[in-house]
């Protein structure tokens, strides 16, 4: 999983090196183990460096690269081979005639590599990608023209890919897509392609989404998209509504903090026009008739999986038969799925390979599928029968924050709709959530708590009912950006094993809201850890006596259990942020992670 970009411009267009570096900086969320560019000027030149884009910038002979108008670029998240200069893209053939960038996985690369090695080709990297330039060079050697050589190489590889290639002495650029995102930008003075729109949004907002199995040829004046047989396809040019400036940090030190503070706005956008307190109705205009009474399966990964757990619980509270599954385990678990099943895939990027795979399987089994995503035009929107947008706006920080809150709310609306609507009280509570999140942002003591607890041995998070997914998400966020050991548990599970971890150096964060049986039981679990001298932090609305057993209290406004799950999570986001900030972590780009995981 990586980000790719390509550009072919006319003489009056910007220099390729500027377009590529600028675009890569917008794609760094997809990976930042290494970065590289390949430019077809007088001759093919390739430059790459391990580490973040700034490293590449520092080693580039930028001035000598000016004047070129064709190029490709790549930012990498390692799958095959560790981050290193050799494994960075672009990859080339032995004679440096062809340079290739690739996002995805070549599944049959070992067989191809063995074959090429037997034929005497020597490899420079450990990547799966490097077979591609060698295959293209082979065909060129055999006398094929560049486009034909590119197609022949793509024909031989299996797996997922968005690939772009430049060939020495050729102004055009060649690309292909299968199960990895690829979008073409149509500009006035050139053409662009990238894994994601922000890479070229500074230059054009007119885009063409490339579908699986399609090929692209870009020139300065034209673009051509063809199918596997070479038939030219007429595809719609869409205008994207994406303000490039939305992706600035607007005065915050980190994107993550900015995005945490954007949650009230994101939630308003998510709710706008969808809840009607006068009529007591929910309207989800994107979805066709939602008359479903079979089992409901949510599939997702990472943070989205926690939102899926939230959704499944909300459904079950309303008597619906619903479960949430980790998408990568969905196939392995042999979950029964058929035409009676509704499968709902939750993926922020809409490109999560594991989730897309589960959705494709559900499609094959005849199930109806709904994609819940933040990204217009993403693969999930095309794989699924229907799509529900969470409308959170662009999220750049690798650790998901506002998109999780928007997923919780959008999925609550979907669950309500599946159950024939929500009560007036529930709609009133939902409409109050944006301000309640703002209240937490205005008043939170999370920074103080973080400063007290930084340096502890481990951090445990517990919750019950709708607070259980919050505990899991709180722990995931914490470990993602602090690199400290953090675990989330169902509160009742603590005594069945994890209690052995508890010492006076392991703070326990407990989410307790309301004063019902769920709260009372969680308080019993808090007493269990308090008795072992663990520092206790409760996130609570003050309705129960939980504060009595707490060393630190993070207050949230009083609301219903759904609103509380959204609002309580914001306190935990802030704790994670301030601990990571105190520890000097790379908050927006945590080590080894990337935002959009487009590999299995």
């Amino acid at each position, binding site marked *: 999983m990586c980000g790719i970009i390509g550009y072919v411009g006319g003489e009056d267009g910007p220099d390729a090196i500027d377009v590529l570096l600028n675009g890569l900086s917008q794609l760094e969320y997809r990976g930042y183990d290494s970065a590289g560019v390949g430019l077809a000027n007088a001759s093919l030149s390739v430059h790459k460096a391990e580490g973040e884009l700034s490293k590449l910038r520092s080693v580039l002979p930028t001035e000598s690269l000016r004047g070129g108008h064709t190029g490709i670029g790549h930012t990498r998240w390692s799958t095959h081979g560790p981050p290193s200069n050799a494994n960075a893209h672009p990859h080339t053939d032995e004679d440096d005639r062809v340079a290739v960038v690739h996002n995805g996985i070549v599944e049959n690369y070992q067989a191809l590599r063995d074959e090429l090695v037997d034929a005497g080709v020597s490899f420079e990297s450990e990547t799966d990608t490097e077979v591609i330039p060698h295959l293209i060079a082979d065909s060129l050697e055999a006398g094929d023209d560049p486009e034909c050589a590119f197609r022949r190489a793509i024909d031989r590889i299996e797996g997922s890919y968005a690939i772009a290639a430049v060939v020495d002495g050729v102004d055009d650029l060649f690309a292909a897509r299968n199960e990895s995102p690829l979008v073409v930008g149509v500009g006035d003075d050139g053409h662009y392609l990238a894994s994601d729109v922000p890479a070229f949004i500074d230059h054009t907002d007119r885009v063409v989404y490339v579908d699986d199995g399609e090929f692209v040829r870009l020139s300065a004046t034209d673009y051509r998209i063809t199918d596997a047989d070479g038939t030219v396809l007429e595809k719609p040019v869409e205008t994207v509504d994406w*303000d490039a*400036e*939305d*992706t*600035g*940090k*607007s*005065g*915050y030190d980190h994107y993550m903090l*900015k995005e945490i*503070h*954007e949650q*009230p*706005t994101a939630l*308003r956008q998510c*709710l*706008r*026009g969808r809840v*009607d*307190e*006068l*009529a007591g109705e929910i309207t989800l205009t994107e979805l066709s008739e939602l008359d479903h009474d079979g089992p409901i399966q949510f599939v997702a990964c990472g943070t989205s999986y926690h939102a899926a757990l939230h959704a499944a619980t909300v459904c079950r509270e309303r008597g619906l038969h619903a479960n949430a599954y980790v998408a990568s385990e969905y196939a392995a678990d042999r979950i029964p799925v058929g035409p009676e099943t509704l499968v709902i895939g939750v993926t922020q990027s809409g490109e999560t390979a594991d989730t897309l795979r589960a959705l494709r399987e559900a499609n094959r089994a005849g199930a109806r599928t709904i994609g819940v995503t933040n990204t217009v035009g993403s693969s999930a929107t095309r794989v699924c029968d229907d799509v529900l947008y969470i409308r959170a706006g662009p999220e750049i920080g690798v650790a998901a924050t506002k998109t999780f809150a928007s997923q919780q709310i959008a999925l609550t609306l979907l669950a309500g709709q599946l159950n024939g609507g929500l009560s007036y009280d529930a709609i*009133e509570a939902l*409409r*109050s959530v*944006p*301000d*309640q999140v*703002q*209240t937490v*942002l*205005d*008043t939170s003591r999370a920074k103080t708590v973080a400063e007290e607890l930084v340096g502890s041995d481990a951090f445990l998070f517990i919750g019950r009912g709708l607070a259980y997914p919050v505990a899991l998400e709180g722990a995931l966020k914490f470990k993602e950006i602090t690199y400290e050991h953090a675990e989330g548990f169902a509160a009742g599970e603590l005594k069945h094993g994890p209690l052995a971890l508890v010492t006076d150096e392991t703070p326990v964060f407990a989410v307790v809201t309301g004063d019902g049986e769920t709260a009372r039981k969680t308080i019993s679990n808090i007493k269990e850890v308090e008795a072992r001298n663990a520092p206790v932090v409760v996130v609570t609305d003050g309705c129960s006596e939980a504060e009595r057993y707490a060393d630190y209290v993070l207050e949230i*406004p009083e609301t219903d259990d759904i609103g509380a799950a959204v609002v309580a999570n914001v306190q935990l986001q802030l704790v994670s942020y301030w601990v990571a900030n105190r520890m000097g972590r790379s908050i927006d780009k945590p080590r080894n992670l990337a935002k959009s995981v487009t590999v299995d």
Partner: protein
Amino acid sequence: MPVRSAIVLAAGEGKRLRPLTRHRPKPMLPAGTKPILEHVFDELIDAGIEEVTVVVGYGRSAVQSHFGSSYRNVPIEYVVQENQLGSGHALAVAAATVDERTLVVNGDQLVDRQIVGDVITAHEDAPDAVATIGVINHDELSEYGGVIVDADDTVSEIVENPTDDRVYRLNAGVYALESDAIETMTSVEPTAGEFSLTDGLAALVAGSGTVRAAASDGMWIDATYPWDLLEVAEALFETGTVESEIASSARVHETATIVEPAIVAPDCVINAGAVVGPNVCLGQNVTVGANATVGRSVVDADSRLGANATALDCVTGRGVRIGPASTIVGGPGDVRVEASVHRDERLGALIADRTTDEGGVTYAPGTIVGAAATIRAGTTVRGSIDSETEVR
């Protein structure tokens, strides 16, 4: 070279606007339904400004999260003034980002594009001017900056809070400055630990360069006290700066009545039989209960009025809950702020962010309630009530 960029000063709390400024600075208080600062940005952009630098400090996330990295396709750069040491210091903090002539504008007062345009034009037409100050005629100068303007439109003196009877124009807080003027202004010694912009201007006037005044009859409005937000809203309606509007995402029951002028912002809900207006501004996601009455009020975002409640001459912060059948009877009344009393202000009640009344509460005219207070059902409140208190 035309004036293309602006520095907007929005770092100060505006202490006299308490308790509404608990979590946000004065520039983010509502003028109608939009923050004062958003009006300022609109006027700057309409006057042709292409780049905005905002100095933020107190409650800065309120500014940053509201506007993000651009507003109406004009990029916004944020500069943080960590300690609010005065408006001159704020300018010094921002000056590092500016290397050409620029406009400097107060972010906490309403100005219109005419004043902004008059200052830009006057400055561009006067090649000898190192600075041009926007001035207007105004009756009440004792709270503001006075400018003595000579016959040839040059500024001869600047006096803060003038009390003598010379002829002053009011400093509208809109300046066009050459970059070396900014340097002179920001190198002034602080008085009593505060770097004031006026001291910098005075130094400029005393110096060798020409400081010109751009006289304008454009609109200038300042909210000195929180209840002034009611008059600000009325003035915006009267001047046509804002127009009556019901947002398309708002839901208004068919039996509810909206009396213009009134603004109903996005996501609002107005229940059956409610009467809203005239001179009412409902911020986003406000709910008005069945048969409730709201007149001459500014109700900020996410607030809820219960069924049968009455709110006249009322200013609320965000997320305020006025319970069912509560009554804010309207002004005039005496308003008590700390040691001083403001007699006969037309204020029903001022209720700060996230205060809740449980219903059946009666507000004596001129009542001020702090933030996050709780007023139990059936109580009568008057005078000034502190934040986070419970009244029973």
